């Protein structure tokens, strides 16, 4: 409203001009010690403050001008040698001013000097002034007038140890004065709300906020009075202030003043008057943001508690927690329309308070959670996202404080709060919990705690009613499930019995996850169980009677069941890998039939489920590699499995893959251990078969593309010949090796149109190797002596040699 502002500027300018004009004459009067004139012009000057046209901010500007002038006037008044009138008479004289407002300003000014002169007890003058000011009932004018009174009286209060204290004057009088001024000012301030037409309510509230500090100043003054000790605060000050706060029934005032009380008075006072202070809260208007008030109170008290350890017993003695808890309950009860987010925010503040002041009192923490559960139960469906955020804050606070999920798991109300979250937020919270565990490297070591934990994160583990798994973003889903998979490794106990229980609980929960989740969780569970197996093996010697209930066989049964669940996905490649891991574990436990069974399962999957040729190549190599390491098999079983492996190797799709798999199989017939199989003939058979396949590959390539195929296959096979020759396989002769070398050279030369540099380099380095071995002399049967090589190389500091058999 431009017009309005413009007008205001104009009126302000006029007012200031008026003040300056009269001030000029007033100064002249002061200079010539003319009291009469001084009074006349000062009164005229002060009349400018009688305006009702200005907003508080503009009025303030005007007021400050007048204030400055009044200071000079006061100086003049003080020096009665200048005007010759006693202060008592002066006090009388100024009351003759025509209008009440100037009169009262002058009276206050003189009153200040009157008190200073000590010609009358301070309390009487103060009482007189505070009563007289009643004459101005206009809110803005009255507030500024009383503010002036407060200002000039500040240093003249009959406080303990002040010069104004006497027989008649006590601190009580000072307190009375300030309280009365405060009360009247608050009344004026509240009255502003009801002035004028309703539609400018917002404007009015803004104007009122501009004036709030004038009212609040009184409380500040009270807090500064030395004589206001705890006793006085408790008996007099607080009750009377609160009385005014409650009775004024104005939400703006109530909010501001409650906050003011909390900020201005010391924390020890608050602690000792907690009941009174909190008692006022339910009596406040429903529109007052009492939760912020309480939060700030709790914040201050928390800070106070953590400031020094001596303070803590006080908290316990006044039963701070239960008082706060009850107060919050009452407020929530009283304000039926308070939205959920308000109530939950209150609980968050209370929880923060508890965690800072009484972190060891888990029962308090649980109590707060319980109160929240009660509140949430009364709400049919919580949909407010801000409220959800607050609940997440509520649940995260104990995690952050205790850094140890196990503590949070003991809070019985924790899962109940989680149950009230909507699905999305529930999962969010579950992730927060998991992240907390990972960050703190926490280990959860008992079965019952694991059970509680998995109840908490059930939103991640399985489909809950109403949730649509397809809707979920794939990346997010993966992240969730990988988190669960990682979590499984944080569940551990040294005791095999307990560990088995843990694994069974995890299994119970994850098995119902559905085909989308199983591929993520099954692996972690399997390796957890394999680790348990090793634990068990480590304890083999100590098993007594009862504990024989847990045997490796039992664990293998469990493993089989777990891996079998992957067929529902289906996930044959993963299942194959896991079966092979189990086979190796069975080998380590020396249980032949179990190892055989696992190999059977792996082969079945290979035959029936793995059709992709690339996957087949990897799978067959894994089978061969695992089988090569098995020492638990008897001749028959080993033969059957080896035969299968070689058979499948030869039937891979691409010739090159066939060749490589078949020569890999050659190692199945030669194990370098003491008791290992060393069947030189069958090794050679394999290698020859590989050669035939490589040949066929060559010819096929010639026919299909008119050029040679992969010569490197031959070089690879050559390397294998050399390998077994050096191991002492009598079936492989040096002439055979020589022949092979010549054959390869022929092949390479005949294919000179298409040189294969990779194969050339490979052949070259192979030949170099042979040369090197020959130079060492007597290659037959010797393993290359590594230490011998060292002398060829300089600057060798240390050799990590414990892995080599020297």
């Amino acid at each position: 409203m431009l017009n309005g502002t413009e007008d205001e500027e104009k009126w302000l300018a006029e007012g200031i001009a008026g003040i300056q004009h009269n001030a000029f004459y007033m100064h002249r009067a002061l200079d010539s010690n003319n009291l009469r004139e001084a009074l006349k012009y000062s009164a005229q000057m002060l009349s400018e403050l009688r305006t009702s046209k200005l907003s508080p901010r503009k009025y303030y500007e005007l007021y400050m001008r007048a204030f400055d002038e009044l200071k000079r006037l006061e100086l003049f008044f003080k020096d009665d040698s200048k005007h010759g009138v006693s202060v008592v008479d002066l006090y009388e004289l100024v009351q003759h001013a025509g209008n009440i407002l100037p009169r009262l300003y002058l009276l206050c000014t003189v009153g200040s000097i009157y008190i200073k002169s000590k010609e009358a007890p301070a309390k009487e003058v103060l009482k007189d002034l505070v009563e007289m000011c009643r004459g101005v009932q206009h809110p803005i004018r009255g507030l500024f007038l009383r503010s002036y009174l407060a200002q000039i009286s500040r240093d003249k209060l009959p406080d303990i140890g002040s010069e104004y204290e006497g027989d008649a004057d006590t601190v009580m009088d000072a307190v009375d004065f300030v309280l009365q001024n405060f009360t009247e000012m608050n009344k004026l301030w509240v009255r502003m709300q009801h002035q004028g037409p309703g539609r400018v309510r917002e404007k009015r509230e803004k104007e009122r906020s501009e004036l709030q500090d004038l009212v609040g100043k009184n409380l500040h003054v009270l807090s500064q009075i030395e004589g206001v000790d705890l006793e006085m605060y408790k008996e007099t000050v607080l009750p009377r202030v609160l009385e005014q706060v409650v009775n004024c029934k104005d939400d703006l005032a109530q909010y501001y003043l409650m906050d003011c009380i909390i900020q201005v008075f010391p924390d020890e006072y608050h602690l000792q008057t907690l009941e009174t202070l909190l008692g006022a809260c339910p009596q406040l208007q429903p529109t007052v943001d009492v939760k912020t008030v309480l939060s700030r109170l709790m914040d201050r008290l928390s800070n106070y508690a953590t400031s020094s350890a001596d303070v803590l017993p006080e908290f316990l003695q006044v039963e701070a927690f239960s008082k706060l808890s009850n107060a919050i309950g009452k407020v929530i009860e009283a304000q039926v329309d308070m939205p959920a987010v308000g109530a939950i925010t209150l609980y968050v503040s209370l929880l923060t308070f508890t965690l800072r002041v009484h972190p060891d009192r888990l029962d308090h923490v649980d109590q707060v959670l319980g109160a929240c559960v009660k509140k949430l139960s009364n709400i049919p469906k919580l949909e407010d996202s801000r409220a959800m955020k607050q609940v997440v804050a509520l649940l995260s606070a104990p995690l952050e404080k205790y850094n140890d999920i196990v503590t949070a798991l003991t809070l019985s109300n924790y899962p109940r709060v989680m149950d009230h979250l909507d699905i999305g937020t529930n999962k969010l919270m579950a992730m927060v919990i998991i992240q907390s565990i990972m960050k703190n490297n926490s280990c959860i070591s008992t079965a019952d705690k694991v059970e509680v934990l998995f109840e908490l994160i059930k939103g991640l583990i399985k489909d809950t009613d109403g949730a649509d798994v397809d809707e979920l973003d794939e990346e997010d889903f993966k992240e969730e499930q990988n988190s669960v998979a990682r979590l499984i490794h944080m569940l551990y106990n040294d005791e095999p019995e307990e560990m088995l229980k843990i694994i069974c609980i995890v299994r119970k929960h994850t098995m119902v996850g559905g085909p989308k989740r199983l591929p993520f969780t099954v692996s972690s569970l399997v390796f957890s169980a394999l680790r348990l197996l090793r634990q068990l093996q480590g304890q083999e010697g100590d098993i007594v009677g009862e504990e024989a209930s847990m045997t490796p066989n039992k664990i293998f049964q469990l493993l089989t069941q777990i891996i079998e669940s992957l067929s529902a996905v289906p996930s044959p490649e993963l299942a194959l890998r896991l079966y092979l891991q189990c086979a190796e574990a069975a080998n380590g436990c020396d249980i032949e039939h179990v190892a055989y069974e696992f190999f059977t399962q792996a082969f079945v999957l290979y035959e029936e489920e793995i059709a992709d040729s690339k996957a087949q190549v990897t799978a067959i190599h894994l089978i061969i590699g695992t089988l090569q390491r098995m020492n638990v098999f008897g001749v028959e079983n080993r033969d059957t499995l080896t035969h299968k492996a070689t058979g499948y190797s030869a039937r891979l799709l691409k010739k090159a893959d066939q060749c490589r798999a078949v020569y890999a199989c050659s190692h199945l017939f030669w194990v370098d251990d003491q008791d290992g199989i060393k069947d030189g003939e069958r090794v050679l058979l394999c290698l020859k078969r590989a050669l035939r396949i490589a040949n066929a590959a060559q010819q096929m390539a010639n026919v299909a593309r008119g050029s040679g195929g992969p010569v490197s296959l031959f070089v690879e096979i050559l390397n294998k010949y050399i390998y077994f020759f050096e191991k002492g396989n009598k079936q492989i002769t040096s002439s055979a090796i020589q022949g092979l070398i010549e054959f390869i050279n022929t092949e390479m030369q005949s294919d000179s149109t298409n040189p294969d540099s990779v194969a050339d380099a490979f052949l070259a380095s192979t030949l170099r190797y042979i040369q090197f071995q020959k130079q060492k002399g007597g290659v037959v049967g010797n393993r290359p002596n590594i230490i011998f090589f060292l002398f060829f190389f300089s600057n060798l500091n240390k050799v990590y040699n414990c892995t080599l058999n020297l």
Partner: protein
Amino acid sequence: MVLVLAIGDLHIPHRAPDLPPKFKSMLVPGKIQHIICTGNLCIKEVHDYFKTLCPDLHITRGEYDEDSRYPENKTLTIGQFKLGTIGQFKLGICHGHQVIPWGDLDSLAMVQRQLDVDILVTGHTHQFKAYKHEGGVVINPGSATGAYSSFTYDVNPSFVLMDIDGLRVVVYVYELIDGEVKVDKIDFKKTATAPSAH
């Protein structure tokens, strides 16, 4: 001076939850020029983490890796040709589950000859190894998380940092033993080899 991190077989999340915190605090971005990863990370998160340490990341496929597009083996060259001397190191990477028998020195030496590299970095056994043979050096950085392995019951988390300078490589191995990081160091020097076939 070129720093190359050789690391692998983390098996996150199947066998281990995360890298040990002590390792994580040592591996900071900006210090390493190349990362060589033998495989079995296994998830994208680990890949992304390595990418933050160093953008020049070379990974080969392990049998449990989620991303099947990683190559079976890879070579890279470090250093430059200098007149008169060959001041280059050729590194080869291969996870190792393809090389049977697993962990066998001589079979790995064959792969080294096949790839024609000076240093072969390989994994799969979760056991740190560094040995020199006639054709070069084979390094196995072990498992960075100490993941379960059918090869050994005692897996300590480990990784390797190579400092390549001209013809010399210093191999630092970091192992987490009983909660403490222990460092060991091995020197290798490359002799000027005969010029290759081309």
